[in-house]
């Protein structure tokens, strides 16, 4: 057994929250630069210039990339040889979110009761934690601050198997078409196909953690991603919905087996401020 202190987890989460909200990943910046180089629409080029300038200002560490510093989605891979001491894992993560969002002057965007008084919890907790137990003696923590505008464009379809591949494509493209300018395009479209309703939605979000520009290891899924991206970019929505060639920077697909009666499709939309940071303890 390898021991990891709970407060070390809190400190790590706090640091990752601040870093993720100020430093956009090189893969996302490269995708935005590529879009700027190929975009035909003058209004869209202007938007992409603003976004690239924004990245430069934010990385000085004073202003977060976006005022919506997100819900703190935390993805944990806990090695089964790890023993956490001095507290429990979930409390340590929540404490880290509280510290990071407070010390880092990040916006607190969580309300306690969703359909009545909607009182702000004032420290951006609770985090949304997904934990997977894996072999080994390491603890990997990834933070994905997720904005409300793009998350609100998520969708689930419980398709029948007869809908087939075409049904999957139509549902996803239609979801992005309806979302229009709302989720801050150019977006990254996360797709989960198969499993149950909850698994499809989780895979859609998890797929967003794959770095932009890295290939999907499954050739059938890779072909689906390529076809979806082309169809989505043919919608013409463009950066911030003002018209253009770049509605999405990428589509990421994850699949999993499902019931003989089912074909769930989950879509999770990620805005261009695609913020992720990870650490391994």
């Amino acid at each position: 057994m390898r021991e990891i202190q709970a407060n070390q987890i809190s400190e790590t989460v706090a640091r990752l929250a601040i870093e993720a909200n100020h430093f956009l990943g090189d893969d996302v910046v490269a995708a935005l630069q590529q879009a700027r180089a190929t975009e035909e629409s003058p209004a869209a080029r202007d938007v992409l210039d603003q976004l690239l300038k924004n990245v430069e200002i934010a990385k000085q560490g004073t202003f977060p990339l976006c005022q919506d510093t997100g819900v703190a989605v935390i993805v944990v891979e806990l090695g089964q040889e790890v023993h956490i001491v001095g507290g429990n894992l979930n409390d340590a993560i929540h404490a880290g979110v509280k510290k990071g969002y407070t010390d880092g002057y990040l916006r607190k965007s969580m309300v306690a009761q969703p359909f009545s008084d909607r009182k702000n919890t004032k420290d951006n907790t609770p985090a949304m934690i997904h934990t997977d137990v894996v072999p080994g003696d390491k603890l990997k923590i990834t933070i994905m601050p997720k904005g409300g505008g793009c998350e609100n464009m998520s969708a689930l379809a419980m398709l029948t198997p007869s809908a087939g591949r075409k049904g999957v494509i139509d549902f996803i493209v239609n979801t992005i078409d309806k979302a229009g300018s709302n989720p801050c395009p150019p977006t990254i479209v996360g797709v989960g196909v198969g499993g149950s309703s909850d698994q499809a939605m989780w895979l859609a979000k998890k797929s967003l953690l794959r770095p932009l520009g890295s290939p999907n290891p499954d050739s059938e899924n890779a072909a689906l991603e390529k076809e979806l991206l082309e169809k989505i970019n043919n919608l013409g929505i463009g950066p911030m919905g003002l018209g253009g060639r770049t509605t999405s920077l990428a589509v990421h697909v994850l699949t999993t087996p499902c019931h003989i009666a089912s074909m769930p499709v989950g879509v999770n939309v990620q805005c261009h401020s695609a913020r992720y940071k990870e650490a391994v303890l």
Partner: protein
Amino acid sequence: MKLTTPLTDASVQNLHAGDTVEITGTIYVGRDAAHKKMVEALDRGEKLPVDLNGQIIYYMGPSPTKPGQVIGSAGPTTSGRMDAYAPRLMEIGLKGMIGKGLRAAPVKDAMKKYKAVYFAATGGAAALISQRIKKAQVMAYEDLGAEALQKLEVEDFPVIVVNDVFGGDAYEDGKKKYAKK
């Protein structure tokens, strides 16, 4: 083009969907919770904490202000969530809205009826936009934190006209132009 606040029936008629505009002057800030409170106040026959006649409201909830800053990052939020409240505010003289994303048909109809304009700022360019804000002051609903009603002084605040008073729609125009079969 340059635009100064407050706006009038005449000044909004010069604005057309797709125009790039730089706004200088006072704009007000409010999002979901502040809109709910304002419309509830109007329903009770009360006056609003600020006079919105001829004014622009910016749908925004900033990140916290650090010591020595005017305001934190300050980009637009999705406007559609304010659709339920926007026609009521146009009825009492609101002339402009800044946000991002689609508006519902009743909002676009109200814009034609009351002569008001919907502008889009670049979503996610929040650090950049913040540089154009010279003063910020909480006017009401301080308990709402990031959702409080604020008054800003802005200089050359960059926006695009999405919906004008003539029924023009930059989102529809742009999409039509670049869609491929």
